[in-house]
């Protein structure tokens, strides 16, 4: 109940703030896109696995958007759909290998694959634009050709809708049988096998879903930025996703978005106010969170909820 309240408050706040302060639209859109990718990371964290390469799916989707947008004048929504599908298929294929690994090795293998993708994108300058990336002109959204301001407002609602739907879907997935089995991988994979459940299959489905979320976040991000750079697939980006996931907490889907907002906010102001010391600030925030609230912001919210229930 409390979390539902927070969700509604968050949506209302997002809308109000973005309209009162137009400049906040971009960071809000970026946060929500990040939140989607983080949600993907959270899916895997529920299985006790941390991917240090999930930005590769965002990045792949981003490049798909650019390639398609430059080659054919497609609608923005179509671009998002196609790019996300490609990222999902990509994660399904890589997932076939990756789901065999656990712990550090799982993280490492994701990292290695993402670095391969990153290096390839940076290398094939003629196709990918190298490190400067590729830009594209604003696509129409649902058939409407919009000016930047209107476009961003429209995109904000698209992103918000995606975030909301995916948040709900993720939450339902967490509570479903495959989702519960996924979480069981974290504590006892052996027992899962002894129940006759294929941990690999369960994990593969989770991986696929997380690839989908990261891809969706990445394609929306690309549309919002009008530009994709290989930076979007660098391991530091993946690290950021994990950072945000821990910050927000993996107990509930809302954690991804809460974390993303706080992260963007802290980095934003740390960079603006303490030029040259934003990493210290972020690092300190992370340590404080881990020591004081290891379950993240969501953990704090649920703890807040418990006494009311009794």
């Amino acid at each position, binding site marked *: 109940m409390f979390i539902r309240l927070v969700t509604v*408050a968050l949506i209302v706040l997002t809308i109000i703030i973005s309209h009162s302060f137009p*400049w906040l639209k971009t960071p809000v859109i970026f946060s929500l896109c990040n939140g989607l990718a983080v949600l993907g990371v959270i899916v895997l964290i529920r299985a006790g696995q941390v991917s240090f390469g999930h930005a590769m799916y965002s990045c792949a989707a981003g490049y798909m958007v650019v390639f398609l947008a430059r080659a054919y004048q497609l609608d923005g929504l179509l671009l998002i759909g196609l790019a996300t599908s490609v990222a999902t298929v990509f994660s399904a294929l890589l997932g076939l290998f990756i789901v065999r690994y656990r712990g550090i090795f799982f993280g490492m293998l994701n990292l290695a694959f993402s670095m391969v993708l990153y290096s390839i994108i940076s290398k094939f300058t003629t196709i990918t634009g190298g490190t400067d990336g590729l830009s594209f002109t604003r696509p129409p959204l649902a058939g409407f050709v919009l000016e930047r301001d209107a476009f961003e407002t429209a995109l904000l609602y698209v992103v918000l809708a995606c975030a909301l739907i995916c948040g709900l879907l993720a939450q339902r997935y967490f509570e479903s049988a495959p989702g519960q089995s996924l979480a069981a991988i974290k504590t006892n994979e052996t027992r899962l096998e002894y129940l006759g459940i294929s941990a690999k299959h369960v994990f593969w489905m989770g991986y696929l879903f997380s690839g989908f979320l990261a891809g969706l976040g990445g394609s929306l991000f690309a549309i919002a930025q009008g530009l994709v750079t290989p930076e979007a697939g660098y391991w530091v980006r993946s690290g950021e996703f994990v950072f945000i996931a821990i910050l927000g907490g993996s107990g509930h889907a809302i954690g991804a978005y809460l974390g993303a907002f706080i992260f963007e906010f802290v980095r934003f102001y740390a960079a*603006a106010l303490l030029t040259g010391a*934003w990493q210290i600030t972020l690092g300190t925030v992370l340590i404080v969170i881990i020591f004081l609230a290891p379950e993240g912001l969501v953990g704090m919210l649920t703890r807040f909820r418990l006494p009311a229930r009794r």
Partner: protein
Amino acid sequence: MKRFNRKFGLIASMMVVLTLWAQLSLAQEKPAELKVGITTYVTGPASVFGVPAKAAFDIMIEEINAKGGIDGVKIAPFFIDEGVGTSGVLSEYRRANQEMGIRVMLAAISSGHCLALAPVAEDLKILNVMWDCSTERVLEDAKFNYVFRTQANATIEMVAAVIYLLRTKPDFKTVAVVNQDYAWGRDSWEIFINTLKALKPDVKVVAELFPKFGASDFSAEISRLQALRPDVILNTSWGGDLDTFVRQAAQRGLLKSSTFVMPLLESSMERIGDAVPDGVIAAGRGDHYFLHPETKNDPAHVAFVKKFREKTGAYPIYPSYHAVQSVIALKAAYEKAIKANGGKWPTIEQVAAAMKGLEFKGFGRPIKIREDGQGMEDQLYGITKKVPEYPFPVLDKMMFIPAELVTTPVGQKSPEYVKTISPEILKKEFKTYNYTK
């Protein structure tokens, strides 16, 4: 719940106040101060450029403000760190515009950031001066009314490098490249080799090495180049990569066995000068040089170098000069616009209009802004030479390659243009200077 309500109320009232304030500050005719957003690297590897540039910005703005600013309006800089990455810069850029009401920006160092910011600036009607980035793609791929560049671009710089190379060392057969593996490293080689092939079709490329950006060891690359012994080696690296390469190559004698072309060596010279032998072709992306043969004795330039050294302990390098140029150009554009506006404070659109065809002079040769927004900046190339006056080599046999000769004409694209350059260009007279004390 009660606490939540109170918080919500607080936030809401804060928002109202902020909105009102933002609108008020936009409404003024002649502002109390001219807010200028400046993006530069304060963190990350490119801060080797960003930090000296920021020092130059500080010096110049302070100086202009001390003399009354622009028509009595003082410049208030607002710095944005490019080290936070593209999306961070974009957010901060928009915040600067929409929250703080800044409509004049000097951005950016990174070519990637220029490419990302230019369309945003155009949409938001922000006067954006690209003060340091080199990519020629920005102004060639799209047309802008609000985006200008107060310095040369990659094409001008690399074509000039080829001309200087062919003029000073016409007889060579093989060439190799060892550049950083990112957009600038790739693009600069592309322009260089296409120009070179247009002017000297028989040249042979023996190795194309692109070690990763930020590599800490070039041993394998150096061994391979030593084995191949190319006549000419291009290296457009900068910062730590260039320092590491030059140190390792110098120690192993590679710098002496091949002729090196290092178009950004000027920016590392003071740090690694002791390792640089005589005879390396060097430059600093334009005609930026604290020993500029035509302006080194100008009082303003001398004073700037002195101030800069007092502030940072080092000689100014090309990004510092780029910073100077952008501020001077901005001031000149405002003054031109004020004049055209009958002495009244101009709108951003009027300033943007004044930018076109603007002529101004930093601490190098005068620069003119072309109608597509590109700055026409002459190029200075030279060869390193050790002299007793400085603990690092200086440039000798300096040659000025005029911008008109080597700049892609408006409407054309560089990749095609450089292939059409005719060898006639090498027969032109270029002004040359030897190093004098």
